[in-house]
C-alpha cells in the first residue's frame, strides 16, 4: 500500500470525510509532508472504491457547492489493520537495529 493510500484510509478511519476534509486530514497526519492534489485524490478514491475499501456515504450541497462524503468499509478497516501491522513490524525491527547501532557509533 502506498503512503497516500494509507493516509487516506487513516483519515477516513476517523469518520466520513469529503474531498477537502480528506486533503486537510492527510496533510495534518503527515505533518504537511504529503499534499494530495485534487486529481490524485479522486483517482485514489476511485481505485479504493473499486477495491471495496471505501464507499460514498452521502452528498450535501453547501452554499451551492456539492460535497460528497466517503467512508471506510469493513474491508478498508481490515486493509488498514494489515498495513498498520506490517509497518509496525518493520518499524520495530528497524528501531531494534538502530538501538544496537547507537553504542558503537557513540
Amino acid at each position, binding site marked *: 500500500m502506498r503512503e497516500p493510500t494509507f493516509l487516506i484510509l487513516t483519515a477516513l478511519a476517523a469518520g466520513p470525510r469529503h*474531498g*477537502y476534509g480528506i*486533503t486537510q486530514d492527510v496533510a495534518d497526519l503527515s505533518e504537511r509532508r504529503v499534499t494530495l*492534489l*485534487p*486529481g*490524485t*485524490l*479522486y*483517482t485514489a478514491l*476511485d*481505485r479504493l*472504491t*473499486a*477495491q471495496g475499501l471505501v464507499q*460514498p456515504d*452521502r*452528498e*450535501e*450541497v*453547501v*452554499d*451551492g*457547492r*456539492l*460535497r*460528497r462524503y466517503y467512508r471506510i468499509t469493513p474491508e478498508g478497516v481490515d486493509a488498514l489493520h494489515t498495513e498498520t501491522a506490517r509497518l509496525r513490524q518493520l518499524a520495530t525491527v528497524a528501531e531494534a537495529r538502530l538501538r544496537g547501532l547507537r553504542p558503537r557509533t557513540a
Partner: protein
Amino acid sequence: MPPTGDPLTRHYRRLLLCYPRSYRRDRGEEILGLLLDTAPAGRIRPTVREAFDVVRNGLRCRLGRPTSRTVGVWAVLTAVICGLFTAAAASRVAWETSRPQPDRAEAAAIFADALPGRSIGQIETAPALFVFYGEPFRWQALDDMLFGDGGEYQPGFASASATGLPPVPVEQTLAVTRQHLRASGWRIYETVSRADRECVSACDPPVALTDTTLVASRGDTVFRMTLFAEGGPNPTNAALEVQRAAPPAVVPAAVLAGLVGGVLAWLVFGWASRRTEYRPGVALPFGITMFLWWLPVLLAIPSLIGHQRAEPHPDWHPLWEWLGQPTGSLFFLIGTVCALIVLGCSAVPRRDTAPLRTIATG
C-alpha cells in the same frame, strides 16, 4: 473562496475537460469545489503542478478500470501505433503533392549529365509515383498485396543502363561523374562499395568484384548510379536510376496526422475500456490486434535501420515501410477486424450504478 464564474473557475472547468463527460457530470462539480477550496485567495489561474495533476489524472480516468496497473501501458501502445498508422496514411496522401516520377526526357538529360558522351540504353519510366510490380496499383491486385507481395509496392523510378564505359578504375569514372553532377548543381553523397562476388577464372590472382553506388540529389530528385565490375576490377557497365524525393508536405502532414490519430486513439481506447470494464471477453481480440499491428513494426524497424545505415539516403524510406506495411498488410487487416470486434462489444450499453442521495444544506 473565489466566486463561481471567475477566471480561475473557468480555467479549472477547461482542465476538467480531460475527464470523460459522464464522469464530469457525476463528479465534475465535486472536483471543482475541491480545487476552489484549496486555491489561496487571489489566485487567478491554476499552478503548473495543479494543471498537470488534473490533466494526468483526467486522462487516466478516461481509461476507466481504476484498479488496473497496466491499462495505461495498453492505452499508450494503442495511441502510438494508431498515431503511426495515421501518420503513414497522411504521408502517402501528401506524396500526391509530388511531381510525377521523371519522364524519359528528364531522365535522359540527367543521365547525360552524369555520363556525358556515353551511350545510354533504353530508358524505362515509372507509370505512377508508386508502383506495384512496375504497374500502378489497382484494386484487382489487392489479393496479391495482402497475401505476401506487399513489399513490391515501391516508389517508381526511371532507369537505364550504360554500357561500354572506358575500362578505367572505378574512382576515375566516379570522379568524372561527380565533377559533372556538381557542375549541374547536384549534391553528392558518400559512395558505397559492396563486394558480393569474386572474379576467379578471368583474374589471376582472384579478386573480389565490387559494385559501387553513387547517390546524388538535386531539389526533389534523387539520382543513383551503380558501377558493375563485370569480369574484372574495372567497371564497364552502369545502372542509372532517377526518382522523386518525398515532397515537403510529407513531414508536416505525417506529424499533424500522427498527433491527431494518437489523441483520437486514446479517446476511443478510453471509451471502449470504460464500457468493457466488466467484459473480460474483449481482452483476446484486443491482444490479437496489438500483436498483429506491432509485430510488423518491430520486425521492419531493425531491418530498415540497418539498410539506412548501410548506404546514403538523401530521402528516408516512406513511413509505412518502417511500419512493415504493406508487406504486413494481412496482419494489419486481421488486427483491424479484431479491433472492430472490440469496438462492437463496446457499443453495447452498460449498466449504470445507482445515484447517491443528495441532501441540501446551508
